[in-house]
């Protein structure tokens, strides 16, 4: 080892061929978007879609997969100023679930050259399957949305019905493995927290997500009766976000000490913030900061 030259010595790049592969792409040939990307004048200053990564998808340029809105609302909002779309914003989507597809697919394609010529950003599309139809029939308006993004499917469910939807998925649809329970914090929204369950079915080899938004102070339903794995996972969500799970057998902190104040993964909790009082009392030291 000692007498060998290190293979990855930056001063001795192994071959010129691989050197180019690591540097900035030189050939703008195929894609019209390339020159802008490779330009040395700070890509950070360019607006969002302009430096979007190259992608194979030829779909539209809708960048906001915001939950709780139908595709029409989003597209019409984006397209209205620049192009006259056939389906106006007034057209209600309620009639058939298939209609939003056509609109969402077609409208951005027309505006594309004007708005952002090289953006090829994947768009969340509606998730269509027999199961979704069944669930929409059974739970009606409680299924707020069923979407698919980057080939991953998810339900957006009203918080009142989230337990029933999860129980149905567990009992009737064979989702016997709860992969993860986690949460997201959006302080600017009215429903601040989004609880996310990731489910997997061994039988179908399929993974889905269920999302449900709740207010600060509201409780999410526990799914410990369905999957015992959620015991620790829900405790971690409580520990990090302060979301309580209604009916949980042992709702305590799990990673942080019991007396700790504050919930670290909330957006208003600073990166170097800590419970100074706890540290001083329990560790007997002034804070390390």
């Amino acid at each position, binding site marked *: 080892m000692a007498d060998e030259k*290190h293979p990855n010595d930056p001063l001795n790049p192994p071959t010129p061929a691989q050197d180019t592969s690591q540097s900035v792409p030189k050939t703008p040939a195929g894609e019209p978007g390339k020159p802008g990307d490779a330009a040395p004048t700070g890509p950070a200053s360019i607006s969002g879609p302009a430096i*979007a990564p190259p992608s*194979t998808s030829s779909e539209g340029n809708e960048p906001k997969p915001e939950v709780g809105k139908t595709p029409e609302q989003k597209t019409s909002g984006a397209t209205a100023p620049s192009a006259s779309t056939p389906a106006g914003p007034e057209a209600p989507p309620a009639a058939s679930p298939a209609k939003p597809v056509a609109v969402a697919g077609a409208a951005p394609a027309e505006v594309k050259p004007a708005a952002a010529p090289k953006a090829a950003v994947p768009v969340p599309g509606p998730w269509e399957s027999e199961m979704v139809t069944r669930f929409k029939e059974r739970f009606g308006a409680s299924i707020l949305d069923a979407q698919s993004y*980057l080939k991953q499917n998810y339900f957006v469910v009203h918080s009142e019905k989230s337990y029933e939807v999860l129980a149905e998925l567990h009992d009737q649809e064979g989702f016997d493995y709860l992969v993860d329970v*986690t949460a997201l914090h959006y302080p600017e929204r009215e429903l601040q927290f989004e609880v996310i369950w*990731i489910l997997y079915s061994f039988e179908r080899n399929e993974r889905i997500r269920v999302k449900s938004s709740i207010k600060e102070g509201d409780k999410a339903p526990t799914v410990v009766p369905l999957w015992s794995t959620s015991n620790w996972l829900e405790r971690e969500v409580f520990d990090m976000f302060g979301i309580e799970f209604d009916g949980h057998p042992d709702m305590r902190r799990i990673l942080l000490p019991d007396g700790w104040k504050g919930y670290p993964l909330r957006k208003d909790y600073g*990166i170097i913030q800590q419970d100074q009082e706890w540290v001083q009392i329990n560790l007997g030291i002034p804070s390390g900061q």
Partner: protein
Amino acid sequence: MTEQTDSLSHLDLNSSDKTFLATNELILNMGPQHPSTHGVLRVILKLDGEKVLGTECVIGYLHRGVEKIAEHRTYTMFNPYVDRMDYVAAISNGLGYCETVEKLLNMEAPSRAQYIRVILAELNRMASHMLWLGTHALDIGAITPLFYTFRDREEILKIFEKYCGARLTTHAFRIGGCLYETYDGFEEDVIKFCNFVDPKIGEYETLLTTNRIWVQRTRGVGYLSPEDCINLGVTGPVLRASGVKWDLRKAQPYSGYEKFEFDIPVGVNGDTYDRYLVRIEEMRQSIRIVRQAVGGLPTGPVMGKVPKVLKPPPGEIYHSIESPKGELGFFIVSDGSTQPYRIRVRPPSFVNLQALDTMVRGALVADVVAVIGTIDIVLGEVDR
């Protein structure tokens, strides 16, 4: 050990008449500084004599808040942090993270990079299993395997060191591929290692597989039924030892695993002994994969075309890989900026550790040590 429990049964511990053997419940603290808890795990045991009535795990001693840190770093800057979670299988962590961000960017690493990733990840799986075997056997009382496995693991770490300069926290992969081309003689080194380690795995087996003490200490200990496994979300070798043939490399192939031929070893009894056999066989299968990957290593670039400043489009993604411990998942939410809005790590060790209570209830104190070892936890990953 189980025989002893049975031989005590005539005393009828539950009867009110305890003239011969009056026992009280005893709360015993184990850890966090205890050699057989593999780090800083504290287990509170509720005992009746030597029998375990219940356990409670106290974790978080190694909590560093990587998920919070991630929100304040760019995608590229967070990459080295993932190596510090499961630090005995840093390559797998890096693979899982880089693949997830690549999916979010809607791109794929070049095929040469994927092959290099598979080779290193499988070598890392062997290294992780070797470390597990050595320490697990040491917990149970066999000292020799530790020296054998550490001797062989060293060879893997040498390959890592030659490839990327680091032995444990390698940071070998980058979003979009691998930073480094293989060094001259990489293929020969790897094949030489495969030829070297193949008979060594047989050597471990001669030490343990039919060893009377080993078999008595592990067979029937820490039983977990397949239903319990699924309900508890247990993955990895622990799940497979209970007879569930499920491996993410086969079920949802990533990084080109569908191109390789290998078997998924499954156990029958779901006990500590079967988990040992499954991991031993997994090492052999890893050698098979590595051999195929080195044989078919394509030419081409090792780094895909990624922009210098990563700004994934707003959206969220969950992607998981089969790490040596089980399903390692990353859930990333992007808001379109250079920093992730949230990164959630789905740690296999954390979820598997939850099964400890089910596994040791009714067993003896000495079995707790065997069961903690057999789950194969790394506290850096449990606490994050």
